């Protein structure tokens, strides 16, 4: 009971602190803008811990954060192996192949107006479909190892990336293209000097959407069959053994990997599209 009351107190304290910070004159500074969500996150974790211990929730339903942290620290080798198998091999491999293929296809498609008219609606349509469902088929074709996961990722990221790149390559306006023409620039010259830079914000948008899709594809595909290593495999078997602390540890890894992957692409974007209004703000 003490723990539950303590949890309520901690929640109120965190909220009070945040409302003071958010309504203070310093709220616009970068430090406070990072501090407020951080305080919120820590408050949630502490309340979670206190409630689980106070109400004696069974480990099977919800492990306390400290238990998860302990499990995380004690199984770093396993987690690293799973990370390497699922993220580095499956997701990243498929991401590079899929985005690369989509980018090259987009350049080809862009040269023909007919193809673009035909492919864009189809691509937009396919991008909205539950493509994860191809996982059982691709696992059957490419075997249980990471190749099949990479294949799922390729299929998943291809169309969002294609649609974004094709849209980006149309971004230049007539005046700019005419200017390149008066310079007597060839197709590839005007492509590299004008149209590709103009397309970059769209390309990076596609790349950023694809980071999340890549992780989803690689993890879900492992539910359909995998070697005895990998994050999806570990999640589904640990759930079967009711070792939920391990599941949470894997989810922490997935969350870290996902935000790091996205952050990395966003950083690269920043250095490439520094001229774009959205980056100057």
């Amino acid at each position, binding site marked *: 009971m003490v723990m539950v009351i303590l949890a309520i107190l901690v929640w109120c304290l965190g*909220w009070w602190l*945040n*409302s003071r*910070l*958010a*309504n203070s004159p310093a*709220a616009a500074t970068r430090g406070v*803008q990072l501090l*407020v*969500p951080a*305080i*919120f*996150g820590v408050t949630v974790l502490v309340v979670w811990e206190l409630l689980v211990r106070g109400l004696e929730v069974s480990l*099977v*339903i*919800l492990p306390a954060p400290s238990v998860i942290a302990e499990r995380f620290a004690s199984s770093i080798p396993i987690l690293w192996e799973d990370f390497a198998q699922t993220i580095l091999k499956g997701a990243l491999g498929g991401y590079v192949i899929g985005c690369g293929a989509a980018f090259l296809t987009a350049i080809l498609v862009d040269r023909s107006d*007919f*193809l673009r*008219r*035909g*492919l864009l*609606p*189809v691509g937009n*349509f396919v991008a*909205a*479909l*539950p493509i*994860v*469902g*191809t996982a*059982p*088929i691709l*696992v*059957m*074709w490419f075997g249980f190892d990471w190749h099949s996961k990479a294949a799922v990722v390729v299929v998943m990221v291809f169309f969002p990336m294609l649609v974004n790149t094709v849209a980006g390559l149309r971004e230049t306006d007539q005046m700019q293209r005419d200017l390149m023409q008066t310079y007597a620039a060839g197709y590839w010259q005007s492509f590299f000097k004008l149209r590709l830079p103009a397309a970059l914000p769209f390309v990076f948008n596609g790349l950023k959407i694809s*980071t*999340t899709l890549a*992780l*989803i594809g690689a*993890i*879900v595909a492992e*539910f*359909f069959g995998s070697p005895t290593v990998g*994050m*999806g495999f570990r*999640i*589904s078997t640990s*759930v079967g053994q*009711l070792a*939920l602390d391990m*599941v*949470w540890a*894997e*989810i922490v890894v*997935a969350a870290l990997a*996902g*935000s790091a*992957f*996205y*952050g990395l692409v966003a950083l690269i974007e920043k250095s490439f599209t520094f001229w774009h209004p959205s980056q100057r703000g």
Partner: protein
Amino acid sequence: MKSVIAVLTVLAAIITLWYAACVPMNIKGVLDGAERAGAEVTPATPKARRDMSEIGLVAKNTFAIGDTWVQERPRLPAPHQVAVELWKTTVEKKITSKRSLIYHAQVTLSATLLGFAIGTGLGILLAVGIVHSRVMDMSVMPWAIVSQTIPIIALAPMIIVVLYSIGVQGIIPKAVISAYLSFFPVVVGMVKGLRAPDSMQLDLLKTYSASTSQGFWKLRLPSSMPYLFASLKIGIAASLVGAIVGELPTGAVAGLGARLLAGSYYGQTVQIWSALFAAAILAAALVALLGLIEKLVLNRMGVRA
């Protein structure tokens, strides 16, 4: 009109490619069958065939090409096989039958819609809170944005098991997964939408001495509609994926995900493909339906979309 022709050409090209791909994909199985049936096959033993490339096999056994499109359990079923299976399992089977795709689709659809309704409702509520409270904005919004970059669908198997252990099963666990998958896109989109009115418009309402709730109902909510529908379309697609993935660890009784899993256990490729197409048709229909509602709502409100 020109676009329609272009789309049809692309579709025709895809189907042609598909038929072409069936030949090398299925040739080994067809030749093994033909050999067992006593036909003349070059090379004669399965062992010799294993070392050859698929293209080479096709070139040496041109008589078998037709058979690659009518196999019982092909590695890649031909388009017409999938279409026939879809027709058989939707139109010719009774809806109550366990083998009817309509029955399975309806199981998945009900979980999707329930979850979508919960997720959207909560998402809109949270967005309203975020727009009106600075504290909530600063504490919750960054987490909602970060949640878009992580594969939260990985939580699905755990939610199923945890809810099962406290006695909840059936449609609810799947709906919970659908709900949280559609929740975050709706929050992020709706916050953007509720902030869409510029300060001139907000100031105008202030000069009318409109209260906060009047400002919400008369300005913020109407101007958020285009954003809301854009994120609803993302949300419903995510909900469907959530419901399908939620069916995987339950031991696969009913639903499109169960059909996928059962098909992959028993090597019933035609069944997998037809379930996949049923899911695709369902997703397309849901997104199209939302598009239609969007058009009606926006027309009614005088927004030109």
